[in-house]
């Protein structure tokens, strides 16, 4: 029977990702080590190695083996846990990630970091091995004892059906020392009773090895413990002839030597490849994100099943009611319909929740990031994470990761001051960055706070004037000034470091967040720190919308882009620079965009005076949309127009209203660029006759 292994590959990839995360977070907490965390790190590495072996991921297996060996020594207390080791192990976690990706694509990974880290691992192991070796020699010279174990291994008949093969166990024992296996066939039944898929054999294994404990042997049998009778006896120490024992010692010390030799040769082989390496790991890192499955908690599935059960009950109740209905039962019908409404709502929420994951998935990477950055920058930083159980749509989560990383890096590099400056300013030498996530209304808010120097208002202004973004004498509010840091090519860092300061990024951060339908705000207080607030919709499938009417058509404006709605006052409407209509909204002059004009519709009201304006904002540009009527606010499910039709300018999608009709969702940025295009065409038309006149 051959099993198609490739079907399990996605599971393995996902599990090893989880394993790597376990290792990472375990390693970061290892300084204050308890036994359990080193065990869980080891287990994670062990199962990655095992899984990789199954799928023939040779590079991963080899590399992870080194890591595992190092971890094993730590686990057994044979090696102290030094900070340098943890650094190496953290780097090797990254390497394993690269290698898994490389093996998955069946290419050899030629990243210099792999060779470097495996060299480091070797060195670290050799140091340990030398000391081990010494202690071994000491042990040998002092005791020179060989322990003889007799293991009675009687597997249950169904052992092989669970995928365990005794030969693997014997091979594993062989690694521990000399093994002599005797097989007993006395349990094999008569041929007529013989089941071909059962195992009737039992074995006695004699193991002679210098320093094996019962626990070591038990570990070999760990997987089959519940499926066999296992008896392990220690025969009297040093029984066998003196000669025999001596030869065993030779073998084992040879083993150590050969192991010591083989490891450096491997790294020597790898070194030239590494130096010639051109392949950069960036593309692999990106490809990694395409995980296509969701792990759903059993509780969520259970609640779904419950709800479906209730739905079925309601349905049968209603259909029974329908079978012989008269007016006396109207009340029953209404209550039944109410129940149906309730059930449907709950069902919708539950289904949505399946796509929701706690934001800790996105936050998990930050302890490591802060750890690395604080080493790189020499700043001591404490990371506080709050609200990591706040749930967020999976798609949003995947796309918010990179912007968040950027904001955190920024906070470390620009926000937190160097140690000396902090002490001079009477602050705690240790900087603090806190990540906080919470729900607010229909959206999720992620705050990134730092207690650093804050944004230098004057520096930002100067830079903006220098870049020509702002007029030299303009008066701007704090919020407007801080918004400038999201301009492309804007960086106030006096020095460009390799962490940040190149001025690429904040604009991308803003763009990414906006493409998710979210927005970002900055608050900052000089000397106290800054706070970046990212406001995101909970899900991309549902949108909070304001229904508006233009003529006979109903449109939906995403609530998140609405600044305010107002009735236009005649004296605040100004016509400037040749028929451009502006509405004075406090200090701002907001251009008025009549929807009926843009979309060629018949509207009730074509006069701006006293019309209803919905002021929306996109990319810092405010526009007043002229509508006939404001209707309800409600959550709508977004449906694509592109599936069966095509992209429509100014429309981001469609939804189905309560009465079954379709309403279109306005795409605010799209509408603004449409209006700009129309204006340009109009300007050209206006410009060309004047040229003719001149000619």
């Amino acid at each position, binding site marked *: 029977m051959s099993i198609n292994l490739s079907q399990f590959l996605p599971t393995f990839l996902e599990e090893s990702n989880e394993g790597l995360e376990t290792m990472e977070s375990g390693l970061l907490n290892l300084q204050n080590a308890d036994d359990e965390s080193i065990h869980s790190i080891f287990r994670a590495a062990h199962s990655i190695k095992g899984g990789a072996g199954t799928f023939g991921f040779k590079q991963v297996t080899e590399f992870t083996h080194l890591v595992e060996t190092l971890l094993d020594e730590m686990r057994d207390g044979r090696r102290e846990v030094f900070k340098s080791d943890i650094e190496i192990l953290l780097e090797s976690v990254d390497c394993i990630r690269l290698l898994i990706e490389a093996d998955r694509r069946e290419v050899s990974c030629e990243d210099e970091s792999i060779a470097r880290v495996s060299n480091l691992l070797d060195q670290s192991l050799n140091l340990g091995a030398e000391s081990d070796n010494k202690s071994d020699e000491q042990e040998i010279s002092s005791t020179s004892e060989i322990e003889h174990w007799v293991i009675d291994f009687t597997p249950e008949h169904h052992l092989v059906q669970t995928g365990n093969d005794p030969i693997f166990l014997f091979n594993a024992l062989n690694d521990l020392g000399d093994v002599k296996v005797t097989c007993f066939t006395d349990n094999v039944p008569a041929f007529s009773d013989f089941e071909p898929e059962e195992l009737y054999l039992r074995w006695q294994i004699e193991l002679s090895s210098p320093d094996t404990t019962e626990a070591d042997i038990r570990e070999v049998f760990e997987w089959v413990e519940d499926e066999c009778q296992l008896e392990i006896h220690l025969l009297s120490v040093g029984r066998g002839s003196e000669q025999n024992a001596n030869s065993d010692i030779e073998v084992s010390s040879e083993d150590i030597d050969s192991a010591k030799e083989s490891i450096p040769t491997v790294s020597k082989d790898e070194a030239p490849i590494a130096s010639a390496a051109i392949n950069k790991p960036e593309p692999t890192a990106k490809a990694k994100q395409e995980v296509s499955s969701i792990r759903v908690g059993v509780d969520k599935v259970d609640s779904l099943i419950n709800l479906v059960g209730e739905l079925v009950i309601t349905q049968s109740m209603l259909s029974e009611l329908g079978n012989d209905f008269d007016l006396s039962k109207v009340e029953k019908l209404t209550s039944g319909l109410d129940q149906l409404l309730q059930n449907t709502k709950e069902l919708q929420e539950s289904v949505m929740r399946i796509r929701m994951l706690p934001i800790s998935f996105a936050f998990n990477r930050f302890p490591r990031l802060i750890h690395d950055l604080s080493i790189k920058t020499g700043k001591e930083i404490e990371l506080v994470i709050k609200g990591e159980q706040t749930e967020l749509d999976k798609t949003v989560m995947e796309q918010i990761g990179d912007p968040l990383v950027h904001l955190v890096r920024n906070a470390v590099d620009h926000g937190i001051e160097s140690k000396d400056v902090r002490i001079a300013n009477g602050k705690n030498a240790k900087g603090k960055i806190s990540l906080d996530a919470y729900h607010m209304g229909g959206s999720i808010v992620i705050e990134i706070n730092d207690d650093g120097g804050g944004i230098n208002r004057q520096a930002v202004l100067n830079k903006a004037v220098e870049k020509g973004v702002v007029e030299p004498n303009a008066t701007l509010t704090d919020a407007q000034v801080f918004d400038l840091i999201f301009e492309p090519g804007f960086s106030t860092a006096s020095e460009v470091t390799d962490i940040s300061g190149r001025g690429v990024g904040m604009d991308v951060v803003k763009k990414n967040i906006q493409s998710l339908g979210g927005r970002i705000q900055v608050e900052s207080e000089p000397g106290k720190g800054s706070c970046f607030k990212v406001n995101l919709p909970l899900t991309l499938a549902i949108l909070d919308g304001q229904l508006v009417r233009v003529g006979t*058509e*109903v449109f939906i404006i995403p609530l998140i882009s609405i600044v305010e709605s107002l009735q236009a006052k005649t004296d605040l409407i100004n016509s400037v620079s040749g028929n451009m209509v502006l509405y004075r909204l406090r200090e701002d002059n907001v251009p008025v965009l009549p929807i009926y004009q*843009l*979309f*060629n*519709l018949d509207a009730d009201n074509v006069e701006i005076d006293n019309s209803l304006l919905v002021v929306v904002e996109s990319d810092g540009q405010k526009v007043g949309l002229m509508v006939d009527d404001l209707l309800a606010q409600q959550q709508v499910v977004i*449906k*694509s*127009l592109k*599936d*069966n*039709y*095509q992209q*429509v*300018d*100014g*429309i981001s999608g*469609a939804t*189905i209203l309560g009465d*079954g*009709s*379709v*309403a*279109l969702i306005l795409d605010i940025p799209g509408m603004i660029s449409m209006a700009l295009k*129309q204006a340009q*065409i*109009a300007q050209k038309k206006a410009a060309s006759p004047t040229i003719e006149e001149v000619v």
Partner: protein
Amino acid sequence: MDIQALAKDIPAQGEQSLEGIDFITNGDQYLTFMLGDEQFAIDILCVEEIRSWEQPTRIPNAPNHVKGVINMRGVIVPIIDLRIKFGVGENSYSVSTVVIVLTIEVEHDSKTIGFVVDAVSDVLNAEEDEIKKSPAFGGSIPPEFIIGLVNLEDAVVTLLNAEALHKIEKHQPNEGIQL
């Protein structure tokens, strides 16, 4: 006796229904419909459903023949008036005006589109050799939409190409932006 009589009947019934099947399997089947006075036909396997006309939600700046979108069991389906597209008949909307909803698959890309027609008439069986080439003597329908012509008694039916209809709304993308 009685049972034997019944047993005799059964094959007879079977033959009758077989005759029916025979008529079905004879060539490909097409749904015929009217645009003005002309008869058209479309591969029946594409037909999702036939609905009565309802006012769709208009799409801003869409070409004239795109009437809008409707909600068909949670799916947003665009409605295209074939009479306007092909310049046949009058585009008036009455009780008998129907929408044929087609699901057209071209290279894994499946689209569901509704087409407004004046009336749905019948199912037509046409074998390949019955389909004649359409002569290129004018006509307002672009040739890529036409598979051929089939004679039906005294009338002529135009067979339309479903795959071409798949791209119908993309034919003149700039038509909408008329300022």
